[in-house]
């Protein structure tokens, strides 16, 4: 199977702290890979090294066989990577449809056009995406007034709008109710499998992780401590130690950590 994402010996330190320490893994098309670990394990740093927000000290990130080290987020996106954020980032003053049209516009390199009218550009293909994520009925409402769960769907449509080969989803279900979580993750899983898209996601909710991930990697203190199918990871002694040892604290901190992290 072709590798969509290859992470090789990635390292990143802040001051003297090794936030990510020699992490390597890879990801194939059509698979969902969950990255988990307690707070401060280096998930966010690892994520930001892949999406271009941070530059690694050493090691390599390859996307579709091309090295993306040192690329800015907008350049990484152009390599075929879609993103969703822990706290949704959409264009609040624009309608749902316009939000997706905006991504299409960038995908076709037309953002500097001053002669055409946006209103009729890429409408059909954008509407198809809205239908796919189940938000078509609200196409003409401003994103700023949507319910949070709906906004997550808009963001998913936006992430899919450049036909990405890789989706990076940071806490895709953060801030949602339990029912909504399952629905959104099932939807995401169905879409990416049918389109052969690879997904890397971080997640706090272990139910979501063990239900939907094909594979799980576990980080602790910057290092990769386990990797495998959900059942293997569940049975891993080291993982159990990390989680059972910190579970109580994790549950108590949960309210606080959901807000920032």
């Amino acid at each position, binding site marked *: 199977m072709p590798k969509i994402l290859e992470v090789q010996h990635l390292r990143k330190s802040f001051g003297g702290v090794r936030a990510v320490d020699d992490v390597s893994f890879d990801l194939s098309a059509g698979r969902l890979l969950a990255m988990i670990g307690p707070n401060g394990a280096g998930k966010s740093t690892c994520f930001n090294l892949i*999406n271009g927000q941070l530059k690694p000290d050493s090691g390599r990130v390859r996307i579709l066989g091309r090295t993306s080290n040192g690329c*800015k*987020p*907008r*350049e990484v*996106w*152009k390599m075929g990577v879609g*993103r969703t*954020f822990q706290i949704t*980032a*959409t*264009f*609040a*003053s*624009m*309608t749902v449809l*316009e939000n997706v*049209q*905006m*991504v299409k*516009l*960038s*995908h076709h390199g*037309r*953002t*500097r*056009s*001053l*002669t*055409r*009218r*946006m*209103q009729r*550009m890429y409408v059909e293909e954008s509407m198809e995406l809205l239908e796919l994520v189940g938000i078509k009925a609200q196409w003409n409402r*401003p*994103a*700023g007034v949507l319910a949070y769960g709906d906004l997550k769907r808009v963001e998913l449509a*936006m992430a899919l*709008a*450049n036909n990405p080969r890789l989706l990076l989803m940071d806490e895709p279900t953060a801030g949602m109710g339990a029912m909504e979580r399952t629905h959104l993750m099932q939807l995401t899983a169905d879409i990416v499998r049918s389109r052969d898209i690879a997904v890397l996601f971080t997640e706090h909710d272990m139910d979501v992780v063990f239900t939907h991930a094909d594979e799980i990697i576990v980080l602790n203190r910057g290092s990769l401590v386990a990797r495998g199918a959900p059942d293997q990871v569940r049975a891993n002694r080291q993982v159990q130690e990390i989680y059972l040892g910190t579970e109580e604290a994790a549950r108590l901190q949960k309210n606080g950590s959901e807000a920032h992290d």
Partner: protein
Amino acid sequence: MGFYLVQFLTGWADASGLFMVACGLTLIFGVSRIVNFAHGSFYMVGAYVAYTLITHLPATGMSFWGSILVAALVVGAIGIVVEVLLLRRLYHAPELFLLMGTFGIILIIQDLSRWLFGAEDLLGPQCPGLSGSISILGSLMPQYDLVLIAVALLILGLIWLLLNRTRWGILVRAATEDREMLAALGVNQSRLFTGVFFLGSFLTGLGGALQLPKGGADLLMDLNVIAAAFVVVVVGGMGSIQGAYLAALIIAELSSFGILVLPQSTLVMMFLVMAVVLVIRPYGLFGKPESMVHEAAGEPSATLRPAPARLKMLGLALLAVIALLPLVAGEFQLVLLTEIAILSLASMSLYFMMGPGGMVSFGHAAFFGGGAYAAALLVHYLQTPMELALGLAPLATGLLALIIGWFCVRLTGVYLAMLTLAFAQICWSIVFQWGSFTGGDDGILSIWPSAWADDKIVFYYLTMVICIGGVLALRAMVFTPFGYTMRACRDSPLRVDAIGIDLRRHQWLTFVLAGAFAGLAGGLYVFSKGSVFPDEMAISRSFDFLLMVLLGGVETLFGPVAGSAAFTWLHDQISRLAFWQLILGSIFIVLVVAFPQGIAGFFNNRFGRYFGAEPQG
């Protein structure tokens, strides 16, 4: 050697005065996030009140220092009144409306000062016992300057103690760091704000009073000092007291020594320092990144939709009225309408970058005045025909915007706005001080339209075609892919970056477009007036445009036109009255309190449904 030492000490004394104004401004901004444009007016009031007291009391050291303290307390009390009666009502309105409210205060204080203290410049009284000089290594140094240095250092120390050693000071610092957290802790915010406003106003009043023996008092002090104080605050970092002191020192010393090397450079120097510092350290020497004006307001911007049919009909009817007006209107009305049209185009170009572009400019007059000067210079030196000059003016200001924009788009929010102000002041001082080329204060005269357009009615039609065309073109751009990208950049820089869009490059282009259209308006303006003066580039001109946009409402596409019309008409109606600034200022304040969405925003909400638009807010 003594000469340089005295030069250094003089610079330090200037820095001390500047610090007291800037310190108050930065305190108020840090805690309340209010950019208080009226701060300079408080400074002026401090000077006038102290002058009045000192000249009416016997000339003793006791009465001199007592008067200065009383003047500062009076200004502090005015600060409390302004905060409690006006600003407190506006904390939840968008920040830009707070700006408009403080503009109103500037105008009111300006007229009240003229009425109470007279229009003549007042020569400052000397401080009894400290009016002499002492000799330092053979050079003379005024004693009073040394006292100023000491007083400013004392204030710096006292404020440090206040902020670091008292409970109140800790709350002030906490509010500067994290406002929401403070609210969550159950601190009485309004009392804290009022207290900080008193302290800030007291300090600027003290600064104004203390500089009397050096600079006296006049009615131009308010805007002159506010520009300098903003530069100091921005260079030092918004909210930082020690930053303000250091920045004041750097700027005052540079101009103190700069005047020896290049006497013409004094005005430019301060703003060049600011530009350099902001490019190297975007948030000032001691500052931290500031969230955008828009984001701070918390509310998403209004959704823009193409004009519905009924609104288009209304527009057509308006066009018909404009076309037929010369049949009935007199020459005077036509001149007024010509001016309204030109200013509408200029404020529309400002709206273009402020509203959809999300970048507030405090220095739009650089482009308007730049266009005016480009056209005037072309005609004056090269006998360029009007048609060509009108074509080249927007090119010239587009180029200017290319340069200024390159620096500005590296910043966000208030810092960006301040940098535009700095660049506008650089442009203004070049025009003002380079008299041999630009005519300086005397301006450039006799710039008339080509023979075919010399008739008032023909020029009226020409202006209308260009300005309405320009306004519609800018409006249409908002609905092009680029216009959407602009709005995307304003709404979510994070998302824009994550969908492959180069934020700065698009903001840069926005700058250039806005600059070019403002330049076109400026070019037309010269030919309509027949002359141009540095005033067209001055801060007050930039503020006019800002007011027009705010008056119309930043969330509505035709707001700038409504705002320009209302502003120009009002100005014309009441400028014949005595105390017209007082009236205009009061009107602003009433408008801000009554219609926080601007005129067009108000109509949009009231009657928008009739025209098929969704109500906002």
